[in-house]
């Protein structure tokens, strides 16, 4: 018995020893090999980050007038941990809250549930259902009310008044965006929208909880990081129940910088008014070709400082009220904006593509000289010209006989330009036949003037336009060949039902394109020279080209932002002008063109009537660009004063008639307002120039016009490095005072505990 039992005790010994060794081995493994992981987990466990939002900077005009600032709104927010600690997970409070704010309990629950948490149905909370990506300790904004809405605010304030009935619910005032100038410059300013789940995980959006607003359009979007500032973080030490036991560290919020635009509120207002009035006038004018009034569905007008490329005014009609986006735009309102035929959300100035018509002749004049034609030469201006098998005529069949380029520009004689373009085409064709490359002088010149590529303005969605040459046509034809050739066989039966003539024309076109579409024929080059056919430009491109002619040949990137002012006014920074290039045109030719354009607004010029009585010469060019099946696009491109140019003004009204009758009078009104000629004071500053210095911030944080003496604190300038050629096109997003990265990671989300 003893032996049996003793040997069994030995077995028990082995079992005991192996169990103890197992425990020790596992403990040692956890604490050494795996230790770092758990040390990190322990630290994440006890620290919660509370985000203190930074005030968003204002957007100011060149004189410090607020274009966008902040107002207070009543924000109802819910602290989930405090709701869950109540009986039945706070069902009673949530039900009361739902009645007050009119959002169903289920939806409130979704909004405040941390993303990734396992829901009752076993799925995890995601952006589909709505979820909170911030700290569980952070109050989650559920609904906000503009302080303008007095009745609603009073009702919702009941939450604050009866705090004891709403534990875990706060109703507090918080800043929201406000547009003191209403819809003015809406396309420039843009609007804010909530950050998406995907964006929230991106590095530049660190410490932005869900529901945070970021710039979605306009300068709000391009300069979002500077305007947004840096959210502060309070690192709280918490225990199991989420009770705060101490503060580990605090990083205060850094208010966003105020963005100063070169836009001038007064001139912007006048420009918008002139454009709107001009469009309204056009709609009362009868189109002699179609027999109806001009549709003039939209328009754009731009004022640029020619010496710097800064935008003084940029109007696009129709426009929208950015206030619609404050507090979240409703689906209905958004659909109304996106389905409006006038496309009010798009800026016609930067996103409208149209043939420039005769305003393009400054390019053609320079191109003709580059092609070898003398700037002082005499060219014939017959009523029409046969090029290939097609007849190209002047507007209303005018003819002026032998004239120089000056007269050709002043009278807008097309046949002169047809001829010089055709001559160049013939030279290129001869070169090609001889196996040499085509010079493509006209398209090359157009590109040098900034057409066919983005202007580089500090706005999103800037378009490139279209400049056609032989290579482009060939590539395009290769892409479209299949479609065109199919159409050449089938024709356009769907068009023939309503418009047989148009269908026949389209069929003819398709047949030509199928076989010869790659050919850059003489007609193409002729139309190109008068800004018709396959030439598409944005009004902004045209304004920059005219500015370059005006300033002696420097092509600038257009700029809206002039500088930044810190919220406390202690630092400021000025953004430099960015050169895009130099026109490959001699000063004498530029001077010739400027002088010729000055004649356009004189008696006998195409804009002579519109500018009758204007006290000093304005250089300009009208444009009437034919559009297939529609009334022509009315253009006027100009700069003033003609002898010492300061500002360029470009106006465009599609389906608006001739440049002389619609666009030129609008430009005249803008000049009148700028120079104070319509019995009103000048909108430019003393000496006819806009302020070059930035506005200043008073000690109390309010903004004063440039030049105001502010006692303390003094400005401390921040040097902005000149843009390097390595990043020529990054001008719009060049970071100034990018927010510093915070040294710690996001905290994990955890609130519930399991069964013990």
């Amino acid at each position, binding site marked *: *018995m003893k032996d*049996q*039992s*003793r040997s*069994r*005790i030995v*077995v*028990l*010994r082995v*079992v*005991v*020893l192996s*169990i*103890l060794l*197992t*425990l*020790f081995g*596992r*403990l*040692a493994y*956890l*604490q*050494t090999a*795996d*230790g770092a*992981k*758990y*040390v990190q*987990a*322990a*630290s994440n*466990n*006890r620290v919660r980050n509370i985000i203190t939002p930074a005030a968003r900077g204002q957007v100011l005009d060149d004189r410090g007038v607020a274009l966008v600032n902040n107002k207070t709104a009543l924000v109802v927010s819910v602290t989930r941990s405090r709701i869950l600690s109540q009986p039945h997970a706070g069902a009673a409070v949530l039900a009361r809250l739902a009645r007050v704010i009119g959002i169903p309990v289920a939806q409130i629950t979704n909004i405040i549930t941390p993303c990734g*948490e*396992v829901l009752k149905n076993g799925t995890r909370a995601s952006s589909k259902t709505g979820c909170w990506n911030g700290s569980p300790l952070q109050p989650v904004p559920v609904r906000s009310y503009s302080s303008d809405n007095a009745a609603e605010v009073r009702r919702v304030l009941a939450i604050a008044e009866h705090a004891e009935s709403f534990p875990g619910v706060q109703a507090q005032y918080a800043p929201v965006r406000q547009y003191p100038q209403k819809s003015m410059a809406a396309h420039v300013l843009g609007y804010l929208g909530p950050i998406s789940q995907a964006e929230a995980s991106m590095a530049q959006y660190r410490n932005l909880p869900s529901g945070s607003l970021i710039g979605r359009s306009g300068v709000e979007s391009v300069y979002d990081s500077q305007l947004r500032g840096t959210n502060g973080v309070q690192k709280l*030490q*918490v*225990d*199991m*129940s989420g*009770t705060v*036991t101490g503060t580990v560290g605090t990083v205060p919020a850094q208010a966003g910088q105020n963005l100063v635009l070169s836009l001038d509120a007064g001139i912007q207002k006048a420009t918008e008014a002139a454009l709107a009035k001009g469009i309204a006038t056009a709609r009362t004018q009868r189109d002699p070709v179609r027999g109806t009034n001009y549709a003039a569905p939209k328009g754009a007008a731009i004022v640029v400082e020619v010496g710097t490329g800064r935008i003084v005014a940029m109007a696009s009609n129709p426009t929208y009220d950015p206030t619609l986006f404050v507090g979240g735009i409703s689906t209905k309102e958004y659909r109304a904006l996106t389905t409006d035929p006038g496309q009010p959300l798009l800026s016609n100035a930067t996103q409208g593509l149209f043939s420039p018509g005769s305003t393009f002749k400054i390019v053609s004049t320079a191109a003709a000289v580059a092609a070898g034609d003398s700037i002082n030469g005499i060219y014939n201006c017959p009523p029409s010209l046969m090029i290939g098998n097609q007849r190209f005529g002047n507007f209303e069949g005018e003819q002026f006989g032998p004239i120089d380029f000056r007269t050709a520009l002043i009278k807008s004689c097309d046949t002169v330009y047809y001829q010089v373009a055709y001559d160049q085409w013939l030279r290129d064709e001869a070169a090609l036949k001889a196996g040499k490359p085509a010079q493509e002088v006209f398209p090359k010149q157009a590109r040098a003037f900034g057409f066919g590529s983005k202007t580089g303005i500090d706005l999103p969605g800037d378009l490139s336009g279209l400049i056609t040459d032989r290579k482009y046509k060939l590539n395009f034809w290769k892409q479209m060949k299949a479609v065109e050739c199919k159409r050449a066989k089938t024709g356009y039966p769907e068009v023939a039902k309503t418009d047989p003539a148009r269908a026949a024309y389209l069929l003819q076109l398709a047949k030509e394109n199928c076989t010869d579409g790659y050919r850059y024929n003489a007609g193409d080059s002729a139309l190109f020279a008068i800004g018709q056919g396959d030439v598409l430009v944005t009004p902004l491109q045209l304004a920059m080209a005219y500015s370059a002619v005006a300033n002696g040949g420097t092509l600038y990137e257009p700029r809206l932002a002039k500088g930044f002012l810190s919220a406390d006014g202690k630092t400021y920074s000025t953004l430099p002008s960015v050169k895009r290039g130099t026109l490959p045109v001699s000063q004498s030719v530029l001077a010739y063109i400027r002088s010729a354009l000055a004649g356009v607004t004189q008696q006998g010029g195409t804009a002579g009537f519109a500018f009758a009585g204007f006290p000093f010469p304005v250089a300009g060019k009208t444009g009437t660009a034919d559009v297939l099946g529609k009334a022509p696009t009315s253009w006027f491109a100009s700069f003033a004063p003609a002898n010492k140019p300061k500002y360029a003004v470009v106006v465009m009204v599609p389906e608006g008639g001739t440049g002389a009758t619609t666009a030129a009078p609008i430009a005249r009104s803008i000049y009148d307002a700028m120079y104070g000629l319509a019995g009103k004071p000048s909108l430019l500053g003393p000496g006819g120039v806009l302020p070059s210095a930035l506005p200043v911030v008073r000690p109390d944080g309010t903004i004063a016009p440039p030049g105001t003496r502010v006692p303390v604190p003094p400005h401390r300038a921040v040097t902005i490095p000149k843009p390097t050629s390595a990043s020529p096109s990054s001008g719009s997003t060049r970071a100034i005072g990018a927010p510093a990265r915070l040294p710690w990671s996001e905290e994990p989300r*955890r*609130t*519930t*505990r*399991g*069964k*013990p």
Partner: protein
Amino acid sequence: MTDWSTPRVSPVRLRPSGVSVRERMLDRTSPLRQLDWVLLIAVGLLIAVGGLLIWSATRQREMVLGLDPQAFVKKHAINATIGLALGTVAALVDYRALRAYAPFVYGASCLGLIAVLSPLGSTINGAHSWIVLPAGFQIQPSEFAKLAIVVGMAMLLGEKRDGESRPRDMDVVQVLGLCAFPLGLIMLQPDFGSMMVFIFVILGVLAVSGAPARWVGGLLLAGVLVGGFVAPHLLKDYQLNRFRVVANPGADPQGFGFNVNQALIANGSGGLTGKGLFHGTQTQGRFIPEQQTDFVFTVAGEELGLAGGGGIILLLGVVLWRGLRIASQATDLFGRLVAAGVVSWFTFQSFVNIGMTLGIMPVTGLPLPFVSYGGSAMFANLMAIGLLQNVHMRSREM
């Protein structure tokens, strides 16, 4: 072979009245000299370390509530003192005479377990294994039942008849019958942890008793089969989840994996020497539920590190080593089985308790012997130590 019919003499011998107390204490045959001091010191150290850990685990919460931060340590000390008294009684009564009381101990334990299931029982911390007495006292009868099973099995298997050298099949069946009743009652609570300890104790005592290997092996196999195939159908979902967490430690860290996850973080972040007593972020932040009772080991792991946690395992090893030594030196089978039963009990309970804080065993409501806070467990544990000393003292006489 012991001649059981011979009248026995008490080891506490009567002395002439002239001998001084001091002399009596230091006499070679005095019970004090006969005690296993190594065992006692190891147990004493475990209780002391337990006190520190309980203090660290509870002071923050008690302070937040405005209560005495040392309240739990003080109660721990009181429990240990009462346990010491009970253990002394258990040590002094000749264990061979204890056999006569074994049926009563067994009966009382079963009554206690029945009472838990009756309206007298109550649920504390999710375990329906308590009887709440007036004046704020609570009893956990399953702790005492472990003691009763050890003594009861030792009694049945330790009585050899007709010169048998090992238990007959009939004895084994009797023992299983004896165990089945309390085991069934514990299953009804359900106290899954105690059940596992019971099964391990039964196997240990049976094995050491010299019972046929087919029984030991068969029971082991049956246990594995029941555990593998039947238990998943009988257990409740939350109990199964505890196994799932062991299989997959990352499972649902916010839900049923929370305790295990937090315990792992506490132990794992301790490093070699820990964050210092009272400085564990997991412990002081009260991230681990039931830390002073079932999860007390995590306080050591986090605040005292590998040195502290390993030290506790070492001290437990000393206790188990002395227990095994007593078992092998016991002069009769009853004493040996009592010792083997106590060792099996402490071994497995320590394994389950520490193992769950290390993520290798499912979470059950088992305290760590001597270290965890809790009166019933402390009393039962110290009475078991008393029995070990009892067997130890009386194995030297021969």
